[in-house]
């Protein structure tokens, strides 16, 4: 079955997954995580299968997306599908609550302020056909 996950990102590679509804939520400007119905473990990015208790029943729950930068880079030499966007920022941040997220950082964030600990927030982002989330200033 075609599930439409290839819309995730600037250029998606994976089209079929059990957590494809993430894309529909992002299209409605919602960032959703999965919560295991068995043990309550929260996962973001979403997971169909609980890493703790191995149950595969989950609910979609919104997350706030506030966090602090762990590290980052500015990409100049990119894979072909991304070359038109260079240079661009990529970052890893730790959300309040401890989950870590890898995402682009908005080019509007002050580049000189970039350092571990910088407070950022994850927000939905639409770009062409694609939809994803990116870090922006809080």
């Amino acid at each position, binding site marked *: 079955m075609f599930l439409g996950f290839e819309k995730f990102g*600037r250029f998606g590679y994976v089209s079929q997954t059990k957590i494809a509804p993430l894309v529909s939520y992002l299209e409605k400007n919602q960032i959703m995580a999965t919560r295991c119905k068995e043990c309550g473990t929260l996962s973001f990015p979403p997971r169909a299968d609980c890493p703790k208790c191995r149950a595969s029943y989950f609910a979609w729950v919104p997350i706030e997306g506030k966090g602090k930068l762990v590290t980052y880079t500015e*990409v100049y*030499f990119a894979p*072909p599908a991304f070359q038109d966007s260079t240079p661009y920022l990529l970052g*890893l941040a730790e959300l309040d609550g401890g989950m870590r997220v*890898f*995402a682009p950082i908005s080019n509007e964030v002050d580049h000189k302020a970039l350092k571990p600990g910088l407070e950022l927030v994850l927000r939905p982002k639409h770009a062409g056909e694609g939809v994803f989330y990116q870090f922006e200033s809080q």
Partner: protein
Amino acid sequence: MSRIAIVGVGHSKFGKRNDASLRELAFEAYRGALDDAELESSAIDGSVVCSATHYDKQRSPAGVVSEYLGLSPKPTFNVEAACASSAVGLRIAWSLISSRLHDVIAVVGVQKMTELSSGEIQELMGRAGDVMWESPFGTSMPAYYAMYANAHMAKYGTTEEDMALVTVKNRKYGAKNPQAMFQKPVTVEEVLKSRPVSKPLKLFDCCANADGAACLLVTSSEKAKKITDKPVWVAGLGLASSPMSLAGRQGPLSSFEVTKNAAKSAYEMARIKPNDVDVAEVHDSFSITEILNYEDLGFARPGKGTKLLKTNETELGGRVPVNIDGGLISKGHPVGATGASQITSLVHQLRKEAGDLQVDGAKIGLAQNIGGIGMYSAVSILRA
């Protein structure tokens, strides 16, 4: 525990080898290893062909490599662990021989990268990370290591000049290695002025894609003593994994837990400490990687890796010479061949055959090989 030895090594010229196909590169290294051990092909009873097969035009290259080496119908198969493929190949050979399933195994590390277009290579590199959650944002191999570099810089004050010292050191030794892709020294200024790839990493902080092969002949102690009077013993092997996604990894990302874990296993198996290592080959896919490796292997305390460079401790004549064959930065990085190439250099050192680059009294050598963006790390400890 049975003792396992390396009794022959072979190495092709690395670089843009537009004169040779994958099977021909493998042959150069295999013939070199047989000549080195003074063995006939009939003595080899199986091959482990190591390559990151997504770069090869040939699917499942073990088949064609084994055929071209004249090893059919003996067992063969591929081992893939990205950039650590042939270090993992040594681990497989160790197991095959320890279990007595086999007597003499040829570990053939090989990669043919330069017949792919730059775009094809970049597309493949873009899928080096988690293809579901990270690649869709435009990741690249250098981007991941650049993120470790920024974390190390922020935590310890490491500078771009510090990182440049790795390239300058390794290119200096690469100039003396006829098998290396780059045989010309560079200056700190040249490194700093090279174009940005993924900040803070610049072109000269990065190793290059290359073609090449390296081969190790591995056997039991009984066989080894009949074949050679200079066996090099596999004293310790460590291998560990890490989450592939960056988001799955803990801590400030100023070190590779995966290397610390692999090193711990290898040191325990070899019953040695980091200070006992006389000569080392570490994975300098990027300049920053070598600095992190000093720390993760215990050659320096966390944050003190750059000090080893500034005090020449990892130069020839220093406390623990590192990558004095030029490293990946000079030799180029034919992914599947790199692990076996590192081990080949150590074997020459431990047999006192390294000429001008010989480390006096080298008895214990350590090779460390990272796979991909740090999903795998292999540490191999050899003894004369």
